[in-house]
């Protein structure tokens, strides 16, 4: 049938030179500023997702990772407001569109077909009064009106099989499924129109570890077969290291480090990434005393000049209060040229520009 997804392209397509989604200088405010000043929750964020790549987006709650995903897909509810930036989507034929400049009809057609989202708390995103088969079929027919209901249901059955659920579950209501199964139904729905980008917002947070492992394996396997790109949002960095090709770490509305997954783990360059990795007690290896990160995340409505992490940072110095660092190539010889970090320890030029003396990169942030 016409809807069957092209299972042909199985070659590993991981290259930064072939971007499928490019986010450029995206800024988002919350609040319109009638009585209060708006809060700048995303400030000039740029991020590129390569074709076939799994990009992890990590950070604590309130750092703007979900906002970034919703803004890039124009799903941000009020009072969220996109105040600037571009989001370029390149489809398989090489045509590029700016999602932020699509009109409503184009946007409606593009959603789900080009970019699909698996929401946070996907367990509750299903409509409780409709059978799941109908819910999947609805989505298909909204985008492909020429498809009959029967065909759409057949396709729904295929999709359920794809995520390891028996097709006779089509006639089940959401409450008859377990949490893990509902999560998989959501993934099946997201894949219904063979999207090129799948955004997953904390898809495993509500599940226990065994189920989390099953879902993560499923995603990896499906990506291999269907060749889509994934933005995987979570606060669990150790999970990301396992499944992501590249990780972007966010803090207070900005990306502070962007590097290959194993580089982030073994050679973190930003003090926050390094501290975050030391916030999880290890299950194996020597038991060691861990400290977490002192203080708490900053109030985004009261951010002044300077680096937002400086109050909690072990390596802060005078310049950190004066300039907010920008993403630069780490000041460590021999690093992967594609990685970047936003820390003044790696950016002597910015330090000199405000009349301070640059300090060297500490040993903790220059491991090889």
């Amino acid at each position: 049938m016409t809807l069957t997804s092209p299972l042909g392209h199985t070659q590993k397509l991981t290259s930064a030179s072939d971007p499928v989604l490019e986010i450029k200088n995206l800024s988002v405010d919350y609040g319109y500023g009638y009585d209060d000043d708006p809060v700048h929750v995303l400030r000039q964020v740029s991020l590129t997702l390569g074709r076939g790549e799994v990009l992890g987006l990590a950070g604590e709650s309130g750092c703007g990772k979900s906002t970034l995903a919703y803004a890039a897909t124009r799903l941000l509810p009020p009072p969220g407001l996109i105040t600037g930036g571009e989001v370029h989507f390149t489809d398989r034929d090489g045509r590029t569109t700016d999602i932020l400049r699509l009109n409503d009809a184009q946007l409606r057609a593009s959603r789900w077909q080009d970019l699909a989202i698996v929401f946070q708390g996907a367990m509750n995103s299903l409509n409780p009064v409709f059978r799941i088969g109908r819910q999947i079929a609805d989505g298909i027919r909204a985008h492909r009106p020429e498809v009959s209901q029967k065909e759409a249901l057949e396709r729904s059955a295929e999709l359920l099989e794809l995520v390891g659920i028996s097709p006779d579950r089509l006639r089940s209501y959401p409450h008859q499924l377990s949490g893990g199964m509902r999560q998989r139904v959501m993934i099946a729905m997201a894949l219904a129109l063979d999207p090129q980008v799948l955004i997953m917002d904390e898809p495993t947070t509500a599940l226990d570890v065994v189920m989390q492992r099953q879902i993560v394996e499923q995603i990896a396997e499906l990506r291999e077969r269907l060749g889509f790109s994934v933005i995987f949002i979570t606060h669990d960095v150790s999970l990301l290291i396992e499944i992501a090709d590249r990780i972007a770490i966010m803090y207070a509305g900005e990306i502070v480090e962007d590097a290959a997954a194993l580089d982030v783990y073994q050679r973190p360059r930003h003090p926050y990434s390094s501290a975050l990795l030391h916030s999880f007690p290890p299950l194996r290896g020597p038991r060691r005393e861990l400290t977490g990160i002192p203080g708490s995340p900053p109030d985004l409505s009261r951010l002044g000049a300077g680096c937002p992490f400086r109050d909690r940072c072990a390596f802060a110095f005078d310049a950190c209060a004066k300039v907010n660092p920008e993403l630069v190539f780490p000041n460590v010889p021999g690093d992967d040229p594609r990685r970047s970090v936003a820390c003044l320890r790696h950016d002597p030029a910015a330090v000199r520009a405000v009349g301070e003396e640059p300090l060297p990169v500490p040993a903790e942030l220059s491991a090889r």
Partner: protein
Amino acid sequence: MTRPETPVLQAVDLQKHFRLRGVGSRDVVHAVDDVNLELRRGHVLALVGESGSGKSTIARLLAQLVPTTGGRLLLHGEDATARGRRAFRRYVGRVQMIFQDPFGSLNPVHPVRYTLTRSLRIHRGRLRGAALEGALIELLDRVHLAPAERYIDKFPHELSGGQRQRVAIARALAADPEVLLADEPISMLDVSIRLGILNLLQDLRDRLHLAILYITHDIASARYFADRTMVMYAGRIVESGDSESVTQDPKHPYTQLLVRSAPDPDDLEARAHGARGEAPSLVRPPSGCRFNPRCPFATELCRIEVPPLMQVGEGREAACWGYSDRPDRPVLDGSAESGAIA
């Protein structure tokens, strides 16, 4: 390990079956069955299990927030079942609970001072003036909210999640308890401040010699924080022992699955692959071992008889027939072939 003293709080054959609603319904949810546990002064016991395994029910039973349907609770070796309001108050003064959600467990219309004062007055009698002020400052100090003046007149919404959880802990300490029941105390907090709370609880254990029950779904944090770890599956304890051995050398097939499923960036190869199945319904739990439908080693014996906890090493127990000397016992593939768990 020597254990001369009697445990502060002890549960013997604890059982909780919830009646299902419905006219004439005889069905019950087997939430907790045959649980024995001991909380000792200056020790942390971790209770690990997935959601729905009954671990929070145990905390609520131990706090006597819900009545048991079987088994006994002993406080210093004596029956502790509180009958009536005053007995319950006395019991609560010795056994305090910390909840998962510090956003929900503090009353938003009262400042920190009110919340703590109330707990102090209820459990320590009429404190006034300088004595009260001193007690409040000492409490905030103990949970590392210093200087106390900065926090004492704040409302919950003015505090961060970690600070709120500290206030909740201070409120529990106001009763001067012997036992702290911490039900997922860090799972709602930002990752960067979780360790701060665990380290605080560890500090309280050492300084005040509290007995702490730490309930969690994160077995790595149990290893970090707890002296002993018990693993629950579908309402039953399946394994117990000191935390280090339980996490490094799990004996029960379920614990093995749990440990191998946890993400570990250091060891990307040794993952459980192809794990399948889900926790069973507790209305009609599987007969025999409740893990048998998912267990790769299960035999006829596992499907018929419930395995008791058996000694599997120094201070360690596992409820698995594989460790019995029955002739028809299942053969556990002891090698760390993760793929075997299917």
